[in-house]
């Protein structure tokens, strides 16, 4: 599965992304399971709001963290996320 570069990416309505105070981390919740996220993965998924495509997400995160060269890392993570059903593209 690959990320379509033009289509907006949205977080799956069949999963829930939320901050867990007791664990001090973001998690993905779904039937019978929970994935604990590190901060960078959580930041990427929070950008998947159904309005932004891959390039926009990369550009927003590079700006937010004042860095460059995130394209490969973000693409690789989003492909994993797509495969796991955490995100969707139309």
């Amino acid at each position: 599965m690959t990320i379509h570069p033009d289509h907006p990416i949205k977080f799956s309505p069949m999963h829930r992304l939320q901050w867990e105070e007791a664990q001090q981390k973001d998690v993905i919740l779904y039937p019978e399971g929970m994935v604990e996220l590190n901060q960078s993965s959580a930041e990427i998924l929070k950008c998947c709001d159904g309005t932004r495509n891959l390039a926009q997400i990369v550009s927003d995160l590079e700006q937010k963290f004042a860095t460059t060269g995130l394209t490969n890392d973000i693409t690789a993570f989003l492909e994993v996320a797509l495969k796991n059903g955490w995100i969707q593209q139309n």
Partner: protein
Amino acid sequence: MAGSNKTNPTTTLRTGITPPRWLLAELTYACPLQCPYCANPIDYAKYQSELSTEDWKRVLTQARKMGAVQLGFSGGEPLTRKDLAELVKHARDLGYYSNLITSGYGLTEEKIVQLKEAGLDHIQVSIQASSQELNDHLAGTESFQLKKEVAHLVKKHGYPMVLCVVIHRENIHQMPEILAMAEELGADYLELANTQYYGWAHANRDLLLPTKEQFEQAEQIAQAFKEKVAGKMKIYYVVPDFYEDRPKACMNGWGTTFLTIAPDGAALPCHSARDLPGMDCPNVKDYSIEQIWYESLTFNFFRGFEWMKEPCSSCDEKEKDFGGCRCQAYLLSGDMYAADPVCSKSPNHHIIQEAIDSAKASALADNEKPLIFRNSKNSRLLS
């Protein structure tokens, strides 16, 4: 982008004890079905009292504060509780990810919508078999068509649809049809749960335990299907531990992750724990969840490795499976401190083979005894 350095307030509270993550709220033992492998205790009929709405809300609030996040509303049939939607709403407000574990009996479209609005995240519907005749026989009630309708409605209203089928000798031959049914119903998750032999299933084991050949054939079919539907349907396959040579890491370790609250308010490290001798399970009407989790004798009983006997105490796999299941060790060997007899290192491992042989002989007998169905009458007779 390094991880957070803040300390976790819950885990530093009591050194070495992880907080609960999963809460199973057994709202009631009442159930319109009579499945002969029900996980409720055999003597459930003696527990008549049920927690009030306010008790349940307090339990949910306290456990959530400690870090519990996955919540199952179970039973019995949780839909028999009139305050279900109110409890679902309370759970959603607290940030739980909540699941209704139901037979589907009594789940109307109106109720499905009401629960969605209250914030329920998903619904797990159990189906007993792929044919009406066998489903209705095993459930002890006419429910097959209704369950299929419920599965459609669950999908229609945007819930992830989790289908659960308990597998045993009476339905294992239907594996291909069961998988086809899951596909036709559009299940997002399919739980194929090989029967675990506790409670009612233990009483009916001679009639429920499949042969090794039956199990292997069914597993092969299920594995091939898993590959076929990868990416569309997620399969949870619960292995039948009688055909394994190492025990399951039961409950991910006693008092590490799971908390079950029984209908009368007893707090249990697993749903069979109250069957263990001398296990005087604390009640949420007397103690807070925090006191129960960290301080009670029950929850500390099998924490760590100090309680273990040989061959577990010197075993290099003890951190992987914690010696297996305490309830199974007690049920099969009479000693709750013993290694789970499923383990091939256990001196009691022969008990497993004897159980398999006994079930096989029962299947071949001319007049096999009938299944004992789970109902209040049988509960009183057997306890």
